[in-house]
């Protein structure tokens, strides 16, 4: 799916109506507009989202005894789509299905179809989350503040994706598209590391865009990331990454399991954590690589619970530990299917770790492709990346504050114009889930 420029521009055309419409009519406009945006990309996605929302509404309102059957229907729909049997990629299903399941299990006291539908189809969050708690839309009230802060957040997201993530995509494709042909293990390691960073920037960037657009339109979305690459252990990393997904699995998988087996706490802990990560892996995709990714993350979190000294290592070592574990698990995440993984591991096993010629066997491969053919562009990308990661906390603070919003917006747009890479493929990684 290509998300074209209208996705970002049209909400601003809607914005003036906020001043003139009462809240109920404004929400109706948001709902109508969201349905149009989704239908523009996929009519089927819009139809299924509306039908499923209606089904859940009817069950909650009139047929409560069918809620568990409805839940099973939603899960079967999910399995059907993920297994590839449908041949149709139903946009957003993986995200809004979790929201609908949550309100089936814990319905609120007053249930309106309009509220359920708006929570499901609200377009900034429809395609890649964040996942709303209890499918609830939270409205804001300060129109001018919303425009400033929403725009800032949107520009930050655009910069993360088009300046950094897209450039990194060229670099990592040099290895991952030809993983059977490398002659050194260092390239595999560096490519996995860069993929880890690229995936974070891409997904958190899209989350920034979603939060920014929603804010402009008067809706507050929950945060999905909290500087996870600065974590000092894997448990902390997963408290700060894809927060809304992990919170959902914590509420509906981890808590029930640990509560059920509370008389055997160690067993409950291990079962709970492995269940969360295996289900989370399957939520992403039904491929061997994702399950290995899930198992690895679960293993290290459990290890940290039982070996407390892991949490006492110096911060810098912790940072390296997290980077290593996450990079290692993301290697399997990226490769996905068993054959790819087998071939890549076989190749890595056969070659030396260090390259014979660093420039030809590592730099040239990473720099390969379109915009980054020259080493200068590779260096430029790495410098931009390093600057961003070192100052990310401060950058986030500037772009979330109200100080000098116009200056920041224009600076961001200027940097986007100078350094941005607007290739069409692989724009938003988490759209595929």
């Amino acid at each position, binding site marked *: 799916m290509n998300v074209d420029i209208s996705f970002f521009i049209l909400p601003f055309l809607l914005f003036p109506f906020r001043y003139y419409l009462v809240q109920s009519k404004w929400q109706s406009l948001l709902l109508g507009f969201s349905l149009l945006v989704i239908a523009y990309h996929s009519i089927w996605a819009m139809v299924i989202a509306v039908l499923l929302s209606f089904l859940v509404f009817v069950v909650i309102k009139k047929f409560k005894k069918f809620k568990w059957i409805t839940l099973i229907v939603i899960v079967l729909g999910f399995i059907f789509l993920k297994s590839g049997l449908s041949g149709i990629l139903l946009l957003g299903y993986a995200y809004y299905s979790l929201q609908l399941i949550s309100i089936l299990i814990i319905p609120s006291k007053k249930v309106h179809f309009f509220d359920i539908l708006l929570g499901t189809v609200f377009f900034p969050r429809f395609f890649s989350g964040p996942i709303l708690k209890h499918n609830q839309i939270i409205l804001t009230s300060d129109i001018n503040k919303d425009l400033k802060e929403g725009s800032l957040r949107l520009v930050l997201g655009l910069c993360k994706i088009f300046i950094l993530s897209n450039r990194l995509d060229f670099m990592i494709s040099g290895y991952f598209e030809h993983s059977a042909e490398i002659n050194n293990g260092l390239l595999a390691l560096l490519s996995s590391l860069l993929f880890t960073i690229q995936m974070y920037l891409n997904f958190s960037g899209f989350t920034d865009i979603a939060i920014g657009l929603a804010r402009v339109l008067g809706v507050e979305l929950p945060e999905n990331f909290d500087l996870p690459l600065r974590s000092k252990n894997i448990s902390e990393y997963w408290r700060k990454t894809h927060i809304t997904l992990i*919170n959902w699995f914590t509420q509906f998988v981890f808590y029930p399991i640990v509560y059920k087996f509370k008389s055997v706490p160690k067993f409950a802990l291990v079962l709970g954590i492995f269940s969360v990560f295996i289900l989370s892996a399957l939520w992403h995709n039904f491929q061997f690589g994702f399950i290995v990714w899930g198992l690895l993350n679960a293993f290290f979190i459990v290890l940290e619970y039982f070996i407390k000294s892991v949490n006492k290592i110096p911060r810098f070592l912790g940072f390296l530990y997290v980077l290593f574990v996450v990079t290692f698990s993301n290697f399997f995440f990226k490769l996905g299917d068993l054959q790819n993984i087998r071939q890549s591991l076989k190749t890595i096993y056969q070659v030396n770790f260090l390259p014979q010629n660093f420039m030809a066997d590592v730099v040239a491969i990473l720099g390969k492709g379109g915009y980054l053919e020259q080493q200068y562009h590779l260096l430029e990308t790495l410098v931009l990346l390093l600057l961003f990661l070192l100052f990310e906390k401060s950058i986030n603070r500037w772009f979330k504050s109200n100080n000098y919003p116009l200056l920041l917006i224009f600076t961001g747009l200027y940097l986007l114009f100078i350094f941005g890479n607007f290739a069409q493929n692989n724009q938003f990684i988490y759209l595929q889930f």
Partner: protein
Amino acid sequence: MEQEILHQLQKIFQNFFKNESLLINYETNSKDIVLWDSFHHVQLISIVEEKFKIKFSVFELADLNNVGDLVNCIQQKLA
């Protein structure tokens, strides 16, 4: 009644986290207490259930975001 519930929770928290000097208020949440993660949250709530002789639905646990939420929930269940 809220104050009484908070006072009792104070003792429960101090015993559970093995910190006699731990002080909690209505805004205290898991970010304020290092060991208060998801796993310990379930164990803590189990102890609260025993002490107050109430029962939480397992799906309510995620909505207890701070001590204030816990106090309100206990108050409702005792009423």
